[in-house]
């Protein structure tokens, strides 16, 4: 088994290396074949691992691969931890990645950077696998930053576009703010437990539980709370939680396949995965969980609201991703880690589907992304239409679809959570259901139904996209329907995660969900009782009425609630705030320090100043050396008299 574990990431890496360094030699087709073979191998082997873990109950594998470094008696290692959580993540990552690889053949067909693109997405798959398979914090951080690097390269893939290279810099820097916290979190963990190995750290977690530290003098903090909050800052960056969410909408500048793979299905869920992995630590800090749930709830609702006013098809999906990541975070805060991972999985499928379907629309529309210029695409693109419908229904949690199971589990868990802030979170996730349904179907109706608003030229060329594009869509649509039915019982209630996720007994949110669960069918029928499902129906209905039936309402509402509209349209002014406060201020500080500190004070005053001082003194002293004998004689005599006088009188 060991060699299989090793082969999984390396197969993807090999594809990336071949396509990246020998892209010219192996050509375009060669590049997509090697990378697809690589990732395909990773996928098949991951399935094997999942079977091994889930069905054959394989023991947990926890081994070092090699010793990265030993310093101060601390072993820094690279190694794998293969348990139920890892196996699930591996399948999700490689599965979505494989679909995206195939889809890319169609989407990037005419792009000159074809080979480079395949190399990057395979490299991403490798990095993400190393992240989820890690058995220690060091490698986690490696993977963490490596996926950030690939994300940077891919957002800026079309590097001649100013918006793209602005977005990728922004994404990298905002993520670095998160990583800054993350790294400090790792430092706390290392210094209090003396190890970076997950299991050793978890075993010694009580050292952090019973220690206090003073970050601000006079205020005692439990170390575990400090550690968890710092680690969570990292998760906020990677999983785009308020206020570190600002990079994700802009990341849509990248080609659509990577929006699906990186900025929806996998990388952005790394933060969720990380917190679930760290459940033995987070469980010990009520305060940290409380922070998690409040941040998550805020993201879930308020980012969803922005989705309502967006007109770019990809940005609508992006805001919906933010909002869904918020749901997962809420689940983490509610100690419903398994529900968070479950939603992560279903979301990976239906959100990748929605993005790729949006990409299909974009191809058909000749790279027009404004949904106000679409409409009535149903009859031109039947496959895209149906898979989009499936994806949207899954997203809004329509009973029976994948998202229903996971989202409902989160909502029930939140209702039963006891950490401070759970009440607020419950209200937010409930309202979020309506908002999600509303913006999803607003987009759906505007794109596929109603009046055909595109120009004549585009209209004439409208047709369904190639099979290489629609095949992955269908492959992703299938799990978007059935994955919930099939897996909810095992994943949430079958003890699947017992060995990977730790929950304190007093955090009974998941136990409450389990009590309410009597088989998947019953769970679906449960929707008939008053509850979130009706909010979803209401959202769809409202979207239908406003955007199909009576479009004038939207305009009236925009005029009437101008203040709210502006607030949403400007995304709560986060970007402007950051631009002024952080970006401009940093440049300002830099300039002041440089011009005043370095140039004026140090160089001007001290360095050149001392040089001038020497020059000035010597200039004066020079006057003494006049070269006239009588001056010297006069000085000598004066001196002599003074010395004699001093000798006599003194």
């Amino acid at each position, binding site marked *: 088994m060991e060699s299989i574990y090793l082969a999984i990431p390396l197969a993807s890496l090999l594809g990336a290396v071949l396509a990246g360094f020998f892209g010219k030699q192996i050509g375009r087709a060669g590049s997509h074949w090697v990378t697809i073979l690589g990732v395909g191998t990773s996928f098949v082997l991951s399935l094997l691992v999942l079977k091994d873990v889930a069905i054959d109950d394989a023991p947990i594998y926890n081994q070092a691969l*090699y*010793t*990265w*470094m*030993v*310093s*101060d*008696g*601390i072993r820094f290692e690279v190694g794998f931890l293969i348990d139920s959580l890892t196996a699930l993540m591996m399948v999700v990552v490689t599965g979505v990645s494989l679909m995206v690889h195939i889809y890319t053949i169609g989407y990037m067909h005419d792009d000159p950077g074809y080979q480079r693109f395949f190399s990057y997405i395979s490299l991403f798959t490798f990095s993400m696998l190393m992240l989820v398979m890690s058995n220690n914090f060091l490698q986690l*951080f*490696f993977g*963490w*930053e*490596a996926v950030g*690097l690939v994300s*940077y*390269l891919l957002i*800026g893939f079309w*590097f*001649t576009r*100013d918006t793209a*290279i*602005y977005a990728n*810099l922004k994404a*990298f*820097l905002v993520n*670095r*703010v998160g*990583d*800054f916290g993350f*790294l*400090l979190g*790792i*430092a*706390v963990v*290392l*210094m209090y437990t*003396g190890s970076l190995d997950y299991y050793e750290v978890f075993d010694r977690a009580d050292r952090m539980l019973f220690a206090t*530290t003073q*970050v601000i003098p006079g205020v005692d903090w439990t170390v575990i709370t400090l550690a968890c909050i710092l680690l969570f800052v990292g998760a906020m960056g990677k999983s785009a939680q308020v206020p570190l969410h600002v990079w994700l909408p802009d990341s849509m500048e990248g080609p659509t396949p990577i929006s699906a793979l990186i900025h929806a299905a996998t990388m952005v869920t790394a933060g969720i995965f990380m917190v679930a992995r760290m459940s033995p630590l987070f469980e010990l800090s009520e305060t940290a969980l409380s922070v998690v749930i409040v941040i998550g709830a805020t993201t879930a609702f308020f980012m969803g609201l922005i989705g309502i006013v967006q007109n770019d098809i990809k940005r609508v999906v992006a805001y919906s991703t933010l909002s869904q990541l918020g749901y997962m975070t809420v689940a983490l805060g509610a100690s419903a880690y398994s529900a968070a991972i479950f939603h992560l999985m279903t979301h990976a499928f239906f959100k990748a589907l929605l993005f790729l379907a949006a990409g299909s629309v974009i191809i058909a529309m000749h790279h027009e992304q404004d949904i106000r210029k679409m409409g009535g695409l149903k009859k031109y693109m039947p496959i895209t239409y149906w898979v989009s419908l499936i994806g949207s229904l899954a997203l809004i949690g329509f009973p029976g679809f994948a998202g229903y199971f996971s989202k409902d589990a989160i909502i029930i868990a939140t209702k039963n959570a006891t950490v401070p802030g759970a009440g607020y979170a419950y209200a937010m996730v409930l309202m979020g259901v309506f908002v999600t349904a509303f913006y999803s179907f607003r987009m759906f109706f505007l794109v596929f139904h109603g009046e055909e608003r595109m120009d004549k030229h585009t209209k004439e060329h409208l047709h369904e996209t190639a099979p290489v594009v629609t095949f992955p869509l269908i492959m992703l649509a299938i799990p978007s329907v059935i994955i919930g039915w099939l897996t909810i019982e095992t994943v949430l209630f079958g003890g699947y995660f017992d060995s990977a996720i730790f929950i304190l007994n007093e955090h009974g949110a998941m136990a409450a969900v389990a009590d309410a669960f009597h088989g998947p069918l019953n769970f679906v029928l449960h929707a008939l009782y008053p509850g979130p499902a009706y909010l979803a129906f209401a959202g769809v209905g409202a979207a239908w009425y406003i955007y199909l039936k009576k479009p004038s309402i939207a305009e009236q509402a925009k005029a009437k609630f101008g203040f709210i509209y502006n607030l949403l349209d400007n995304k709560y002014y986060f970007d402007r705030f950051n631009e002024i406060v952080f970006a401009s201020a*940093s*440049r300002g*500080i*830099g*300039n002041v*320090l*440089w011009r005043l*500190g*370095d140039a004026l004070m*140090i*160089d001007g005053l*001290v*360095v050149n100043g001392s040089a001038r001082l020497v020059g000035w003194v010597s200039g004066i002293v020079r006057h003494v050396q006049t070269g006239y004998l009588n001056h010297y004689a006069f000085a000598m005599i004066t001196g002599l008299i003074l010395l004699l006088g001093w000798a006599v009188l003194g």
Partner: protein
Amino acid sequence: MYADWPLLSLVIWTPIIGGILVLFAGDKEPSGARKIALVVSIVTFLLSIPLYSQFNTDTHLVQFVERHSWIPAFNIEYFIGIDGISMPLILLTSFTTVIVVISAWEVIQYRASQYFAAFLIMEGFMIGTFSALDSILFYIFFEAMLIPMFLVIGIWGGANRIYATLKFFLYTFIGSVLMLVALIYMYNKSDGSFAIFDFHHLPLSMTEQILIFLAFLVAFAVKVPMWPVHTWLPDAHVEAPTGGSVILAAIMLKIGGYGFLRFSLPITPDASAELDWLIITMSLTAVVYIGFVALVQQDMKKLIAYSSIAHMGFVTLGFFIVFRIMDVDDAQGSALALEGGMVQMVSHGFISGAMFLCVGVMYDRMHSRQIADYGGVANTMPVFAAFMVFFAMANAGLPGTSGFVGEFMVILASFKASFWIAFLAALTLILGAAYTLWMVKRVVYGGIGNDNVKALTDINKREVLFLSLLAIAVLVLGLWPDPLVNVMHATIDNLLNHITLSKI
């Protein structure tokens, strides 16, 4: 087979003698001098490899020792040898010199033989500085290497080179004079020995220690350079030719860091503990203050020069945070901090060297270092752009590259001392990425900025060669730093034991 060879002397003197040969070769036949220079630099590098492969990692005692009387009247000796902190820096020097020779190949046409000779001779002096165990021998090498560098900047430098050379020379010279005074004082105290290890065991009162510490501080802080005595570095870099910048950044700055470990910490441990706050403050200022300054630079070389200062801040931070960590109960983290500082020095040698070479590659084509003159270089130089982005990421401390390792170790260790020190140090994660990648955005990415960029040709095989060598070094050290860290353990542990014992 090497057992009886004076291997270390060979590594010191081969490049110096080779350099003189190159001088004699002259410029009549244009490729003659550079061919000899390449052979000499490669031979020196090969000779230096046994210093690593034959190195005994189990002992802190100096190895490859050669000790002969030199000036008996003052008991000055030709006393050389290496341990875990000097050996990696010697290899870094011999490796970097090969790179510099290749990088200058066709680029330097004016007085080429003298140019190559200067670098070879400088290499010998620098290796001598790292190997010297007699303080006067150290001092002579330390001063001597300034001369070729002075010439390199003064002859092959830019428009404002005279100001830069003077500033460079005065700064470093004034610093080292104070050091000489300290050395002579200790010579008298120790009954006529200039051996550095005798100074290590010399009992000194607190006042003596503080004065000696300050004398060393001035000498080494200027070299590193630490804030606020750093302003000579951007000027020197901007005026220096590419090779000069590479050696300056990759090796010469390290001599300051090395000096702290070889002299300041072991000779004046009590003063170092007493004044640790001063160095820590200066180091953090370097990281944060200089980080902001780097952000607004318009000149690429200046930007990289400032980024060097910020990165070297981690070296001095790592060396002196140790005294704070030792105050905490179990003191775990001290070795991590020291070794982190050392790793940072080696890594910075690779990365800053590579960054300056990247600027050099562009400068050779465009004759401009201004960021504003570029834009969209990736369109015309895709291969080069890949290297540039890679090294920029290394400069920003991306895990998997060597730039991450040292910073990671020092930040982890500083946390033991204080949350806020680690907090300020970790700001480099954001600042380093900001100034480096913002430059990359403006230079490499974007649409083609102007006709000059449009006319650029991608790097040739020779340029691919030296950039690849550095890229491999950066990657290997980032993915597997153990071979480097491993050779330091014994020396660092011994040093830590030494500095915990008070000399008063």
